């Protein structure tokens, strides 16, 4: 169970972006969070992934409250989340090849031995050709790069996936491919999903339930 309890967060304590939000995602459940641009849903996603410290409130992961954020969070808690960001260009270190990009979490957690097998397997899962794996981010398209970013998010087999406007910059076929890859992974692993976006049609078809930002803040 991933529980966000009365979270207040933002970048200025006097004017928080997220005010007193409650949201629960059950294991294996997929929740779509709908909201207009700039309402704070990305901030909420960052808080949920332990990447941004909230001003007030609690994030409870499988009954265990999070006490630290970013580097202060224990590694096991941080890696329980696979995060896919809106803009693949900004979310990929320009100096790494796609293979290195996908393998980076494995290396960071001391599992370099698995790199070759996992990268090949994931490249197939997200539909990346082998010939693309040696390229750097500027040599591939946005869609291809976002596939690599999804592969990176899946490489540690997270229990929770957080997709922050994952498909906002992509065309319909890439969107379908990525959503299918996420759903296949969830069917295998039983991971929960928090998908943030503004595309009502997509989220309603993709997720078990969708929540509108207004309902969250009013509840």
């Amino acid at each position, binding site marked *: 169970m991933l529980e966000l309890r009365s979270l207040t967060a933002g970048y200025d304590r006097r004017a928080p972006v997220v005010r007193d939000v409650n949201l629960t995602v059950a294991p294996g459940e997929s929740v779509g969070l709908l909201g207009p641009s700039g309402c704070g849903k990305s901030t909420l996603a960052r808080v949920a992934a332990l*990447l941004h410290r909230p001003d007030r409130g609690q994030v409870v992961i499988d009954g265990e409250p999070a006490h630290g954020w970013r580097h202060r969070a224990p*590694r096991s808690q941080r890696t329980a989340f696979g995060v896919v960001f809106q803009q693949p260009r900004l979310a990929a270190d320009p100096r790494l090849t796609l293979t290195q990009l996908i393998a980076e979490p494995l290396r960071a957690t001391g599992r370099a031995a698995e790199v070759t097998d996992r990268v090949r397997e994931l490249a197939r899962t997200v539909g990346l050709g082998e010939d693309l794996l040696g390229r750097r981010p500027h040599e591939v398209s946005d869609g291809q790069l976002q596939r690599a970013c999804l592969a990176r998010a899946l490489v540690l087999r997270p229990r929770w996936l957080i997709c922050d406007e994952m498909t906002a910059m992509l065309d319909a076929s890439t969107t379908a491919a990525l959503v299918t890859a996420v759903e296949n992974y969830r069917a295998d692993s039983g991971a929960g999903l928090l998908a943030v976006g503004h595309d009502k049609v997509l989220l309603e078809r993709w997720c078990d339930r969708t929540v509108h930002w207004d309902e969250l803040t009013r509840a």
Partner: protein
Amino acid sequence: MADAPTASAAEADVSWRSAASRSGRAVVGARKPSRSTRAWRVWSSAAIVTAVVLAVLIVPPLADLDEQAVHLADKLLPPSLEHPFGTDDVGRDLLLRCVYGLRVSLLVGVVAAVVATVIGTAVGALAAASGGWVDRLVMRLVDVFSSVPHLLLGIFIVAMFRPGVWPVVISVALTHWLSTARIVRAEVLSLRSRPYVDAAISGGASRWRVTVRHLLPGVLPQAGLAAVLMVPHAIWHESALSFLGLGLPTHQASLGTLVQGARSSLLAGDWWPTLFPGLFIIVPTLAIAGLAGAWRDRINPRRRSELML
């Protein structure tokens, strides 16, 4: 009347700048040096730097000449075929002493610049990557250090040791890492807020790994450029310390001690012992700065502009 030569000297001194900035009216969109001018500058700088490095590396070991050899009979000879730069007041060949002096100055300049850059990068990266009170404390210390004029601080440091090459290196390195630390900190702060750092944290990367894998490689071009720009500055600093009698011992040739030793003969009207070491300070440092400027233009084409010294 007295002002006229000074003004023209200043004019000549900055002749490598574009006409717009020389007249003090540099504006956005002002005429920039043409492509061929820039290429010419880069190539001439590269040629000078290559010649200097070769001279410094090859002449001392190959030519079995003693730059300390005194020939009192030949003292203060003007430039001639036998002594292209003339001789000094105890009859030592000035060309040879200039080459040996440049060797010491370059060594000091390069080593001090590298050490200063390493210190600056480490401090700047530490401050920015840690954030919070570590950042505030470290950067306030940097402010405190930079509030002391660095020549003064340098003099204080060399004064603690016997004269020699390494005290000068230490003195220059310990007083010149501040600007690099600021540059690196600013750069790391901007990189640190990129989503790929978020992604790395979410992937379980430690603070150390994020810094070494993602942040430092991003600042290396800036830090390398700062190091190269620091070399001429360090050479000037060494010359200044030696000129003041605080750097190298006076018998050892360095560009600073050469200019210092030549002062008495300059008053007697003998210009060559001052002119040639002076040129040896100015020309190679301008060439190094020229190359650094070209490098900066490459990594940041939008700021294609003046050399910054």
